[in-house]
């Protein structure tokens, strides 16, 4: 009865958290947690249970939420303050603040040369697994979505200062764009203890893309000589879309509006099987000695082919704009601006008209590579270190995590972590898993404090899940003794 009450409280807390907009992957903290079957998600060789089977709460097996930037935050761009008209600056003193301001000076100073904001969410609808002897099997169905917006600092400079400061030089915007993908993932996990020291695991993922918008190499440059005689504007880039939308164009090929496809229902969207993909996870763990384990994994090595409702826009244009040539009309002495303005508009439209095709395209998944070491300090406590390389587009993002992990009282899994992520140093994380009888509830986050100050947060992530674990003899088999081949509770 008491345990039911405790579970209700925890469930209430979790639902309360999910209901908020403040929690925002797969935390590194999860990697070394003990007794959680979902550690296989970050390393398929780490099954999390020693025996028996489990399934997760249908429709709510686990939820992953994450958002992060390269060390800039919302409050760098928008914050409270008082405008000082004398210095033309915004006083950042919260005490005297009276309004919200867009502070491009502060925003630019917080940016690197290349910048991004990344967001991902996943909901596992159904998951189950079984471990017998050295073999572990698991299956799951997950809805995944991720989006990233990327830009270079130069673009912000142009927005803030205009093109006048660049007269006499060449302005490069650098690549910028936006990607978003939604897909369904059917995962089949298998891991095997090859020897007492080595476990290998893998996962095959069959993917079905629901919708995608993918930009590639969008950039422009504006060059002008010292006296600004002309502006040489060149643009290039590609936009690939697979979504139930209809683009409308002018007779000159410019996109004028976007409408949803008529007679295309939510059901049509969610049951779309025309965008198949495949991905693999691979992992290993190696027990160097009784106390030390090395492990590594590659997660989401794969791609999706997009074939349904495809629109591909490709742009490569260049215009040398010198203004109006006064010489010719001077001979007639009746110069009119209007025809020339129209002529210039037409030539710009003609040059900056994207080519449109409906051929298929493919996108890669954001691949993650983990490498970890776990040192067993005592029967219940281990210390670990984890490096993660996440590859999004053509850019690699690294993070390093140190964690202390414990498995107590045959039901309580705890991890405390500290991470360096994308040049941020304030990531103190916590993982907690509580198993009462058959029910296990777990949660992990790499930055505990982000939800308290979301506008200042640079990294936010949370994993929450509920499992029902049957027949796991972990407690009685291995309590108080080190099982050298176990990536699960001691």
């Amino acid at each position, binding site marked *: 009865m008491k345990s039911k*009450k*405790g579970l209700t*409280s*925890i469930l*209430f*807390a979790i639902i*309360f958290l999910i209901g*908020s907009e*403040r929690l925002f992957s797969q935390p590194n903290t999860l990697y070394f947690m003990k007794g959680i079957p979902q550690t296989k998600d970050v390393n398929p060789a780490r099954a999390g249970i020693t025996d028996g089977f489990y399934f997760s709460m249908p429709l709510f097996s686990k939820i992953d939420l994450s958002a992060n930037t390269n060390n800039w935050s*919302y409050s760098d761009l*928008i*914050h*409270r303050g008082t*405008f000082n008209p004398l210095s033309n*600056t*915004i006083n950042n003193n919260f005490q005297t603040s009276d*309004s*919200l*301001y*867009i502070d*491009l000076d502060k925003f630019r100073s917080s940016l690197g040369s290349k910048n991004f904001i990344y967001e991902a969410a996943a909901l596992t609808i159904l998951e189950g697994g079984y471990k017998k002897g050295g073999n572990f099997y698991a299956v799951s169905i997950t809805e995944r979505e991720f989006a990233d917006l990327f830009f270079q600092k130069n673009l912000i400079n*142009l*927005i803030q*200062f*205009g*093109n*006048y400061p660049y*007269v006499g030089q060449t302005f490069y915007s650098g690549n910028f764009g936006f990607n978003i993908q939604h897909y369904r993932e059917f995962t089949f996990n298998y891991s095997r203890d090859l020897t007492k020291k080595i476990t290998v695991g893998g996962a095959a993922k069959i993917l079905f893309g629901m919708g995608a918008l993918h930009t590639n190499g969008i950039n422009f440059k504006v060059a002008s000589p010292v*006296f*600004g*005689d*002309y*502006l040489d504007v060149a643009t290039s880039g590609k936009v690939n879309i697979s979504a139930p939308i209809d683009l409308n164009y002018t007779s000159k090929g410019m996109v004028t509006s976007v409408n949803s496809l008529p007679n295309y229902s939510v059901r049509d969207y969610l049951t779309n099987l025309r965008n198949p993909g495949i991905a693999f996870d691979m992992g290993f763990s190696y027990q160097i000695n009784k106390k030390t384990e090395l492990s590594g994994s590659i997660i989401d090595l794969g791609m999706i082919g997009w074939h349904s409702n495809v629109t591909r826009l490709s742009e490569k244009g260049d215009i040398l*704009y*010198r*203004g*109006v*040539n*006064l*010489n010719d009309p*001077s*001979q007639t*002495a*009746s*110069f*009119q*601006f*209007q025809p020339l303005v129209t002529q210039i508009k037409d030539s710009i439209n003609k040059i900056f008209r994207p080519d449109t095709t409906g051929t298929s395209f493919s996108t890669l998944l954001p691949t993650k590579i983990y490498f970890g070491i776990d040192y067993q300090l005592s029967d219940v406590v281990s210390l670990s270190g984890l490096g993660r390389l996440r590859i999004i587009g053509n850019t690699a993002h690294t993070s390093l995590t140190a964690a202390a992990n414990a498995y*107590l*009282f045959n*039901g309580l899994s705890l991890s405390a972590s500290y991470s360096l992520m994308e040049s941020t140093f304030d990531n103190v994380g916590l993982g*907690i898993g*509580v198993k*009462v009888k058959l029910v296990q509830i777990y949660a992990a986050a790499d930055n505990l404090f982000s*939800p*308290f*100050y*979301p*506008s*200042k947060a640079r990294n936010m992530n949370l994993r929450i899940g509920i499992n029902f674990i049957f027949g796991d003899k972990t407690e009685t088999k291995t309590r108080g003794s080190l099982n050298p081949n176990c990536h699960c509770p001691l």
Partner: protein
Amino acid sequence: MYESSYNITMTSIRKLIPGILIPIIITMFFSCGLDDFKLKELANPIDIIPEYYAPLAYGTFKIKDMITANISDATPIPVVGIYLDPFVMGKTNVTFSSVAIDSVYLINHFTNNTPVNMDFSYYFYDSSTGFTIGKTFLSGTIRPGVQDTLIQFNLGRADQNIILQSSDIIMRFKMSNPGVNPLLYSNVKNATFSIKIAFYSPVMLWKLK
């Protein structure tokens, strides 16, 4: 023995975790700063004033092409000067004004490859009344041989309104003897001068609504 201590501990944990979690969550909900997300309180970004630049026009002119009147080659160029034919730029249906622009800077780069002093002016003409309106913008004297000299005019809000009312923008060139030696029309008629006209303007983005 072990089981009973385990049960006691688990009971404590069951009480402890909600006891810790719930106050933390409540604290989070009532203390964390969501103030910065109240975008309705966003002030106008009055400090964000980008400056945009674009070339407007260019041309190289031979003096004789700018004079339609018959002038004999032996005509001396006076020190007070001779006006060349005005250059009339009809602006019907073309608007230059924006509420987000308080000032427009008209940038002229003038190259004088003639042996005479040159100057030019802009003024605005309203064909409905037949009068010039607003003020005239004068370049001042540009000495012979000067290359790409910068002459900048500031067109304020009032000037922009004048342009808006006008039907034509008139640019007029004048040549004059520098005053050292006598100069005849034959000495200057095939000489050329050129002008490149551009503008830059600070744009108050917050007014673009």
